[in-house]
């Protein structure tokens, strides 16, 4: 046998959608995390509810790399229908665990093979009645795996304790099957692969969460008051999590609500309601994915031109059209940047970690209300629905920014001398009053048709140009309210990489890989659009810059080229999207290949 490989491999479970393995997989993930080993878990699932092949892949990385890897060192095969494929996918020298009731030939000899008598172990436990068998059978492979790679049993028990909220009965039941698996493995299997885990302390102070829950919590800490939403994968759990947490976090002591969540009849209504609420002074939002975003186009343009603050989360999935609803992508960017007929430009926030999903959750409202504009937060399925190790959520470090709002007292002070679209401060941002303001000068009429500074209907050509130019100016002002880029430098690097969103871990890892091969690159992660000067200084100061993104056409590069044509030729596109999260290897290889040319 070769050398031990510790805390540096991937585990993939091939199973069936709806078969209950997610509890087992989460337990593995959580136990490893509790052992102090950096992990990330990704669910590769079909757009169906029950019965189709699903994979869950866990990366174990002592170095803290969180990106997906293509290599599968350990594969656990539970699904007869994907058995052959799963067997094929094991990396040479890897380990293959499988349910021994799958009566298919295991032909490979370059890997360690471990059959597991899952069915018989479950049956032999008298405590488990027939209808519970399917449910707990997955715990057997947890036990077998734990035994073979050296997982800490107490951590598994802790994981189950957390999962089942300290309820003794299910914990004991599940734990009994874990133990049965482990004991059977100890007695019957001989270790033939090099993969082991060992406790470390690299997860201290970290949490694990998915981006939708983070975004939901962030929104709640941002004071969200109105959510209009319509279900769509992979955005659904964002609104649902808001719904879940609001009562605990935001009800008043006497049980009253400071918010409203309405599941609307479709996305047009969802954003329409949110715009109505935003106009009426509430921190309002909606969340959706590609098809819903397309449907929101007309309303988005209305919010742009009427200057109504509203936050829209786009948890991206693979498009165009219905596409692959359960695969990840960054393909909506180009569309979102031009969303709505006529001249528009939009503010886009691009969280690059689950932690930032939380942060941008609250920050988006500050930006929207400050700028009096729709703000799009672009997350994706990989963030939204997968478990990520991340820094703990940080309580907002700045007070809420409610923007330029005039209430009764304010209007009295200025003797009602006020116009909705007057650029009093020269920054392009006007003042607004909020319906419910009872001052007799407070009211104005909001419309998507041409209007002057006093919000009166106008078809005057010069007025039109003036208002639209002022709005454009407002988006210049926006830059100073938007989160700037984050840069990871390497001494002496001449080439740069720019990216955004969930590609971050792959690029950070690729940066190390490339350094290992002697190629130094500086890496800048954008966090918002429109871009600050810093971004172009970065591009300008490098010989070449690779713009890495998960789509076909290289949308971010297009946007940056348009913003700074002088630098266009410095920007090369590395755009690829097959629906799976990017790997470091892909990024490193792509850069190497382009550098060779």
């Amino acid at each position: 046998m070769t050398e031990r490989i510790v805390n540096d491999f991937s585990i993939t479970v091939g199973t069936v959608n709806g078969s209950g393995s997610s509890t087992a997989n989460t337990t593995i993930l959580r136990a490893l995390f509790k052992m102090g080993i950096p992990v990330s878990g990704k669910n590769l699932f079909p757009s169906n509810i029950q019965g189709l092949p699903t994979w869950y892949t866990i990366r174990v990385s002592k170095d803290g790399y969180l990106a997906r890897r293509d290599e599968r060192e350990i594969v656990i095969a539970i699904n007869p229908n994907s058995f052959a494929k799963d067997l094929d996918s094991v990396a040479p020298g890897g380990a293959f665990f499988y349910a021994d009731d799958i009566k298919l030939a295991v032909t490979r000899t370059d890997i360690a093979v471990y059959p597991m008598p899952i069915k018989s172990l479950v049956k032999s436990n008298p405590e488990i009645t027939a209808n519970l068998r399917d449910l707990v059978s997955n715990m057997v492979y947890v036990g077998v795996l734990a035994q073979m790679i050296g997982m800490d049993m107490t951590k598994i028990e802790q994981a189950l304790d957390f999962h089942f909220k300290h309820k003794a009965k299910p914990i004991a039941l599940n734990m009994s099957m874990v133990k049965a698996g482990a004991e059977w493995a100890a007695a019957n299997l001989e270790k033939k692969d090099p993969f082991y885990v060992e406790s470390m302390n690299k997860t201290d102070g970290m949490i694990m969460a998915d981006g939708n829950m983070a975004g939901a919590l962030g929104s709640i800490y941002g004071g969200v008051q109105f959510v209009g939403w319509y279900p769509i994968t992979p955005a659904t759990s964002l609104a649902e999590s808001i719904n879940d947490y609001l009562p605990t976090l935001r009800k008043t002591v006497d049980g009253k609500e400071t918010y409203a969540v309405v599941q609307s009849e479709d996305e047009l209504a969802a954003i329409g309601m949110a715009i109505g609420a935003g106009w009426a002074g509430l921190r309002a939002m909606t969340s959706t994915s590609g098809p819903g975003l397309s449907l929101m186009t007309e309303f988005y343009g209305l919010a742009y031109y009427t200057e109504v603050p509203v936050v829209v989360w786009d948890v991206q999935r693979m498009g165009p059209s219905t596409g692959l609803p359960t695969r990840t992508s960054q393909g909506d960017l180009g569309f979102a940047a031009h969303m709505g007929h006529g001249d528009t430009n939009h503010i886009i926030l691009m969280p690059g970690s689950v932690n930032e999903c939380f942060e941008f959750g609250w920050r988006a409202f500050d930006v929207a209300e400050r700028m009096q504009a729709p703000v799009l937060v672009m997350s994706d399925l990989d963030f939204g629905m997968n478990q990520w190790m991340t820094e703990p959520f940080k309580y907002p470090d700045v007070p809420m920014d409610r923007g330029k709002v005039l209430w009764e007292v304010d209007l009295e002070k200025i003797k009602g001398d006020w116009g909705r679209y007057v650029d009093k401060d020269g920054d392009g941002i006007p003042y607004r009053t909020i319906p419910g303001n009872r001052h007799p000068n407070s009211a104005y009429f909001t419309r998507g048709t041409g209007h002057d500074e006093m919000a009166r209907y106008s078809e005057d050509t010069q007025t039109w140009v003036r208002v639209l130019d002022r709005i454009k100016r407002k988006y210049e002002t926006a830059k100073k309210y938007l989160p700037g880029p984050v840069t990871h430098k390497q001494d002496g690097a001449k080439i740069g990489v720019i990216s955004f969103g969930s590609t971050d871990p792959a690029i950070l890892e690729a940066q190390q890989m490339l350094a290992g091969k002697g190629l130094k690159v500086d890496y800048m992660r954008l966090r918002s659009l429109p871009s600050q000067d810093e971004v172009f200084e970065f591009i300008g100061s490098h010989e070449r810059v690779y713009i890495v993104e998960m789509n076909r056409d290289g949308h971010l590069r297009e946007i940056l080229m348009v913003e700074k044509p002088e630098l266009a030729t410095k920007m090369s596109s590395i755009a690829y999207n097959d629906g799976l999260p990017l790997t470091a290897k892909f990024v490193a290889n792509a850069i190497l290949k382009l550098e060779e040319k």
Partner: protein
Amino acid sequence: MSDSLPMAGANVQVNAAGLSKADYRGAPSTLCVGCGHNSIANQIVSVCYEMNIVPENILKFSGIGCSSKSPTYFLNRTFGFNGLHGRMPSVATGALFGDRSMRGLGVSGDGDSASIGMGQFKHVMRRNVNMVYIVENNGVYGLTKGQFSATADKGLELKKQGTNMYLPVDICMEALASRATFIARLFAGNAKQVKEVLKAAMAHRGIAVIDIISPCVTFNNQENTYYSYDFGKANEEMMHEVSFQQADPSFHQGSEGSSISYIPPKPEIMLEADMIEGEIREVKLHDGSSIQLKNLEKGYNPTNRMEAMRVLEEAQENNWLLTGIIYIDPSKPALTELSNLVDTPLNRLTEKDLRPAPETMAKINSLMF
């Protein structure tokens, strides 16, 4: 600006809210002279004045269309949102959460609500949003110059459109199916009834759907304009030829087919005498056609859904325009009452109310694995 605000002078008559009628006015109408929509706007002004409603306590909403322009023409001191075509309901639904002490007052058209807006219209009723929802129904798209809307009568002929092949959407029947809690049908020309029913609608909690037949004097049935009763027979043919650049679907067509050169101003069609309960009266329209108005019978019980369906079906079979309050259910809570909202208007809450305390953060983090 402050000087644009009308203030009641010393000897101006004021209502119990201390406001003069001028405080309820809007901008001058830019609709056609004689358009039914104008008279509805006037009634809204009167109703709010007479009911002593403070204009700031209302929120105005509309979609897109001639009808949807109306909110500009009443209640200048009221916040208003003229949204997108067919999407008034969603904007209103969200906005009314801002301060739930406010009542919504929406004006839409038949195209806006029954064509493009059908989905939102149905769902806003189902949610019982706290607003008066007026459909200024003329069976036609006024603002885009006279196409059939979904409430156009079957068999109606319009220039450039041919004959309408479909039965009309019945706004009140739709409202019943969607369980609106207040449903009425009115004729814009019956000012007295419009005023009375509007008052009841304003006083209702939840959605009050009012289908107001409001003839488009310019486009509805324009093909037959020359049959118009107040135009002398002698000039009929001439008027027709002279006034329209015809869109004749033949080789002899002129090249500017889609524009109408001249729109003769017409007086609004108003009832001359009040109608009594159960009365049936024929009213002539400008285009020479007539409608049969029928007031609901005395003793009609508007709280019974089956009865409401029956009278609507009956009216439809007899070609009556049945007017009055067709259905009412005062018991259902409005959407904003279904949730257990704090007393302070949501839009007056501050950071203290909206941002969970710092202590909660650690607790939340402890839940994350």
